[in-house]
């Protein structure tokens, strides 16, 4: 398989959304603290009223500045998400009953709908920003460690195996997307676009991608076996430092009141 390695290639586009190496505040925190922060921020984003959302927005904005997130590439990546937001806003504005601001035939936009739509979009944006901050400051290996830490307390679940599977999922997602893109281009080179039936076109792309994915999974299993993988592995080391305790206290102090607003 030949991956696109040009700076602006498929891989570069995919990785702009993932972990961004650095040594900022969030990078240095224990992954469990970051996970707790993410859960707290998402809870606030989904259930708080406007004042809570505003404070959360300011907090996330501050963290994004501290983390020096590259805004331009991120906004480019979020293009499609912005279209989705616009759709959500329009749908809410049209579907929410209230005092009409504008109407055309059966379509009516209400003031309450615009406010409701804005609120829903704010919740989605804040949830996305919290997720972005988390993924930008957390190496997939740390996430794997957190998964292991969570599941090792649950009886009947093989924590090591679940953690390795989570890591492999993150590792192989871009590879599968690249395979799909290569197959799509190969089919386009043979004029598949002239076939009007979308089911035919989809199956002609999906089947080779599935075949290649299963083949890769087979080869990976063999490669893991040859490197002595049995399911038992070195314990991932996690320890809460003083800064993590401080961060937890600050997070609790900020987010719990926001949840109650």
């Amino acid at each position: 398989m030949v991956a696109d390695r040009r700076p602006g290639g498929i891989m570069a586009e995919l990785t702009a959304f993932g972990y961004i190496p650095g040594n900022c505040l969030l990078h240095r925190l224990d992954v469990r603290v970051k996970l707790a922060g993410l859960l707290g921020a998402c809870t606030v984003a989904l259930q708080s009223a406007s004042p809570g959302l505003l404070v959360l927005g300011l907090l996330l904005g501050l963290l994004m500045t501290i983390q020096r997130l590259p805004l331009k590439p991120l906004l480019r990546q979020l293009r499609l998400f912005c279209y989705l937001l616009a759709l959500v806003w329009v749908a809410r504005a049209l579907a929410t009953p209230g005092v009409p601001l504008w109407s055309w035939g059966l379509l009516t936009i209400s003031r309450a709908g615009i406010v409701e739509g804005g609120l829903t979009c704010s919740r989605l944006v804040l949830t996305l920003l919290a997720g972005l901050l988390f993924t930008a400051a957390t190496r997939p290996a740390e996430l794997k460690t957190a998964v292991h830490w969570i599941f090792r307390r649950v009886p009947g679940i093989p924590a090591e195996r679940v953690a390795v599977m989570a890591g492999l999922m993150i590792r192989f997602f871009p590879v599968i997307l690249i395979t799909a893109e290569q197959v799509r281009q190969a089919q386009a080179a043979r004029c598949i676009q002239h076939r009007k039936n979308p089911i035919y076109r989809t199956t002609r792309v999906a089947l080779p991608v599935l075949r290649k994915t299963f083949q890769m999974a087979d080869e990976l299993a063999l490669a893991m076996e040859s490197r002595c993988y049995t399911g038992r592995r070195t314990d991932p080391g996690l320890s809460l430092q003083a800064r993590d305790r401080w961060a937890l206290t600050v997070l609790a102090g900020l987010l719990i009141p926001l949840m109650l607003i």
Partner: protein
Amino acid sequence: MDITVNNLSHVYSDGSPGLQDISLHIAGGEFVILTGANGSGKTTLLRHLNGLLLPTAGEVRVDGVSVSRDLLRARQKVGMVFQDADSQIVGETVFDEVAFGPENLCLPRDEVRRRTTSALAAVGLLQAAQKAPHLLSGGEKRRLAIGGILAMGAPAIILDEPFSNLDYSGVQQVLQQLAALHAKGRTIIVATHDLEKVLALADRLLVLAAGHLILDGAPLEVVKQVEDHGVREPHWSRIGARAVSWLN
């Protein structure tokens, strides 16, 4: 560390023969090239050396211990680099990828870190430790795979078609790595049909055809007969020149 193959035969699950009555001995520190046409059984033989496949008849011994009896020991002693570097990478960063093997051996965290750092230094990838493996070049990916094996402390390394899909620079990177490891006393076994690139570095050449070990001897003696078995003779050998690898 010696590898001994005694009367090894392998029959695939569909009943077709893979290997037939192969016997050979590879001494510690040897650099061996295994060649043959596609389907001659090179990969099948390599996979028996670290227990990924088990014999239908005969046995493989690593340092006197049967591979079938202690699979983990065999896999720790004989590391394998697969043909497709992309599909064997497990870690999300270069460091994690190399640490995967030592972690599977349940070594203490500090020892995992020490071995991983030392292996990355040995393959010249220490600076790329936090990079995503899929962003490495083809040659770097092969070196990464070799690093993963070094971190497990394997005294023998087997490589299946290590030059496939590599450009000139990638081939040179792999060759330099192999030459350096061989100089440090590691056993190197390379399966390839591309003798031009690597034969000059080898101590011994094995030729497989239809699952049989047809030829086994010094490279300069055996290479004259490889074209009878579907492998191209290197250009330097055809014109009677001195043996050169792609490193020269």
